[in-house]
């Protein structure tokens, strides 16, 4: 088994390594100079740039050959636009093959703060109010789609000129500028698709979040469920922000900026919850220490703006934790590992622009794996629970059977018949003892634990009955018992029965002593009897099986029972530990 686990681990890490290199190779993309347009969506990335503004700069015939070149597809170049007021010009050649029925549009993003757009010298759009001074400038939307009138979109050469004033945001780092040309329908389709994806992903997150929240409150309050639920909620928020930042029109620049900040923050919060969830669900030891360290690391990374490194670190740590847990055979670790690897792969695909929303699909894949893992665990727990219920009812049955087993009842009744003839005045007491034993039995049949004083009443009654039947005298002493201690029913009664059946001959008097001691580990009950302690008479028969089952039911994995001969008798020692030790056993 270990060998296979090791092989699987190695396979996944090699896969991860391979994919990482593949992406590194693919990253060097050539810069496109799209000035010819023949359909679809094209970015206009090569521009002529000049600071200041003059009246004729928007004219089609203006010669801008002396202006600086600017490639806005390279984010670095946007830093050059550190001007209050400037112009951008570019040439677009519309192909002859273009359909005349299609409405052409221009889409712009991040032309801060205000701009005016000219097509062949004709003003098509005012975004905000351009001004020479800060106080007169009115910022426009962060993006917009401008339709080009049909009369102006004939095949041939066209000039796009944009006048931009940026008093307000000049001192801040610029966001990447995007200007695209395309058919209006294409822009619209893309937006509708993005909107659908947003609702789909958010819907799945919401469903999983609610599912886990319900699970948390109604099932077993495992913090892992709560953390996964919060993780999903954070991601719903993030999906909304990503959509807003990338697609929403009529979004002011300041709204855009605050959305960016929130998106930035949500990445920290989300990743914190992801790793926290992984730690919790895999039952990592000393989890609180790790959670506090993780929180400190997250806060630190947030304030030093170490976002890239932080995200990579969280993904790696999650993978390492899952791999270790998988190595140790923890429940759910295999699926967690698969989920995280899928998450990393899809996120990389997303980052390389090969799969839009790749990051979210990665998270969805991870969550799907974890939900599957939860499902499997719940089914297992459910089975265990059902088995426990079955065991409980079997034990209840066994207890009742002990009470009405023919060996006890018929022999008692036959003894009673003789007592009625021989010593009729004692027969009443015999019946009282029989009734006492029955009454405690019937009261405790359905209970997992009873007061020890009831158990002692049961033992006393049984000893009295057996005293008459065997023409002996049995006594029971208790040491250190308060009476309110809880123990499983008929445990000591079974030990009394065993002692009498195996340990004493006719007319032999017997003494039983039950002692309770408090120890560091928990409680120890010592049950002594002064019988002839023959090992083969204490061979752990059916009675002791009952005792074991009862102890395991009430104190799972935290009990031991030993039985051994001592000077002058026989002792059974039952230890009930405060903390789980191992599978309880009888020795």
């Amino acid at each position, binding site marked *: 088994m270990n060998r296979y686990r090791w092989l699987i681990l190695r396979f996944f890490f090699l896969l991860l390594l391979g994919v990482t290199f593949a992406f590194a190779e693919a990253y060097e993309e050539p810069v496109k100079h799209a000035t010819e347009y023949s359909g679809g969506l094209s970015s206009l990335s090569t521009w002529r740039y000049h600071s200041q503004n003059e009246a004729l700069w928007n004219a089609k015939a203006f010669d801008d050959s002396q202006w600086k070149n600017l490639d806005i597809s390279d984010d670095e170049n946007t830093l050059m636009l550190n001007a209050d007021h400037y112009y951008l010009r570019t040439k677009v050649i519309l192909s002859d093959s273009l359909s005349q029925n299609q409405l052409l549009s221009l889409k712009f993003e991040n032309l801060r703060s205000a701009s005016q757009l000219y097509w062949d010298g004709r003003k098509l759009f005012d975004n905000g109010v351009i001004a020479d001074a800060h106080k007169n400038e009115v910022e426009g939307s962060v993006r917009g789609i401008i339709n080009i009138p049909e009369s102006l979109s004939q095949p041939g050469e066209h000039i796009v000129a944009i006048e931009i004033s940026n008093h307000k945001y000049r001192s801040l780092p610029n966001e990447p500028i995007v200007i695209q040309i395309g058919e209006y329908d294409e822009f619209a389709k893309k937006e509708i698709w993005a909107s659908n994806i947003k609702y789909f992903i958010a819907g799945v997150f919401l469903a999983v979040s609610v599912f886990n929240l319900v699970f948390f409150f109604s099932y077993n309050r495992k913090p892992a469920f709560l953390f996964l639920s919060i993780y999903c909620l954070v991601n719903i928020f993030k999906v909304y922000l990503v959509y807003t930042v990338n697609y929403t029109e009529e979004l002011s620049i300041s709204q855009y900026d605050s959305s960016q900040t929130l998106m930035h923050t949500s990445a920290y919060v989300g990743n914190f919850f992801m790793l926290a969830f992984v730690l919790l669900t895999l039952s990592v030891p000393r989890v609180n220490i790790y959670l506090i360290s993780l929180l400190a690391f997250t806060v630190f990374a947030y304030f030093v703006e170490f976002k890239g490194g932080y995200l990579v670190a969280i993904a790696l740590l999650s993978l390492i934790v899952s791999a270790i847990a998988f190595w140790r055979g923890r429940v759910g670790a295999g699926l967690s590992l698969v989920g995280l690897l899928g998450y990393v792969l899809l996120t990389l695909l997303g980052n390389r622009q090969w799969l839009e929303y790749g990051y979210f699909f990665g998270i969805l894949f991870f969550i799907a794996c974890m939900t599957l893992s939860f499902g499997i665990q719940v089914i297992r727990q459910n089975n265990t629970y059902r088995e426990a219920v079955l065991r409980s009812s079997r034990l209840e049955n066994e207890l009742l059977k002990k009470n009405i087993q*023919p*060996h*006890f*009842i*018929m*022999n008692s*009744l*036959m*003894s009673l*018949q*003789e*007592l009625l*003839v*021989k010593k009729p005045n004692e027969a009443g007491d015999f019946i009282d003892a029989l009734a006492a034993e029955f009454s405690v039995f019937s009261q405790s049949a359905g209970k997992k634990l009873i007061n020890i004083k009831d158990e002692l009443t049961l033992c006393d009654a049984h000893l009295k009955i057996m005293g*008459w*039947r*065997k*023409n002996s005298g049995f006594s029971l002493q208790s040491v250190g018992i308060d009476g309110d201690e809880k123990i499983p029913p008929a445990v000591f009664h079974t030990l009394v029965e065993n002692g009498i*059946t*195996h340990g004493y*001959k*006719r*007319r032999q008097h017997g003494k039983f002593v039950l002692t309770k001691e408090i120890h560091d580990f928990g409680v120890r009950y010592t049950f002594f009897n002064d019988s002839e302690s023959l090992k083969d*008479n204490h061979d752990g028969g059916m009675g002791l099986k009952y005792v074991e089952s009862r102890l395991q039911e009430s104190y799972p994995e935290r009990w031991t029972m030993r039985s051994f001969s001592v000077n002058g008798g026989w002792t059974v020692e039952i230890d009930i530990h405060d903390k789980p030790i191992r599978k309880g056993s009888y020795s």
Partner: protein
Amino acid sequence: MKIMVVEDEELIAERIVRMCKHTLNSRLLSIVTRFSLEEADIYLESYTIDVLLLDLNLNGKDGFELLERAVASSFHTIIISANTDQAVRAFEYGVLDFIGKPLSHARLEKAFNKYDGLIHEGGGKARYVSVKKNGGLILLNVNDINYIKGCGVYTDIHMQDGRNALHDKSLNRLEAILPQYFFRVHKSYIVNLQRVKEIKNCGDNKHELILLNGESLPLSRAKYKSIKHNML
């Protein structure tokens, strides 16, 4: 009738003795009580009994070990036990009867009638015969028995595989516990009818039984008719 009661609970033992006395009256020659089989063994070294009334669960031990010893003896064994679920097995070991606790006069009387041969109920139910051999006990499957020959107070059991074993019980007592297909063909012979090949007419109204292995056994005139009826 000489009876021994083996029962580890004193009140119950007293009850059984009281009821035996009441049921048997003058037919009871002697009755003794012992509280363990060891004590019983000591008594049996010096005295004989006709019936053992045995509790199957003495001091929590498995009663069938004791039972195997008891049924190998010359006397009949009647079990008195609260665990009636053990009755079928006890009968297979060759007990004369099994009485559930608590005891009633009527049931006890029925058991003694069985002892007297007054009740037959279609033969006994023994599937094994326990035999003392070399200081130990062996269990013989009754299906492996060809026939049993009476030798005074003992009996000689002849097996299918040619072996034979001596049993302490008399022919009468074995007849009472063996199944119906064991037939008393002669005052000295019980035969397993499943092993009979044919009845040979020896003339002069004399007959012999020929077994599958070729052995021949005498068939008394009185039994000839009923065995013919039985074999048909």
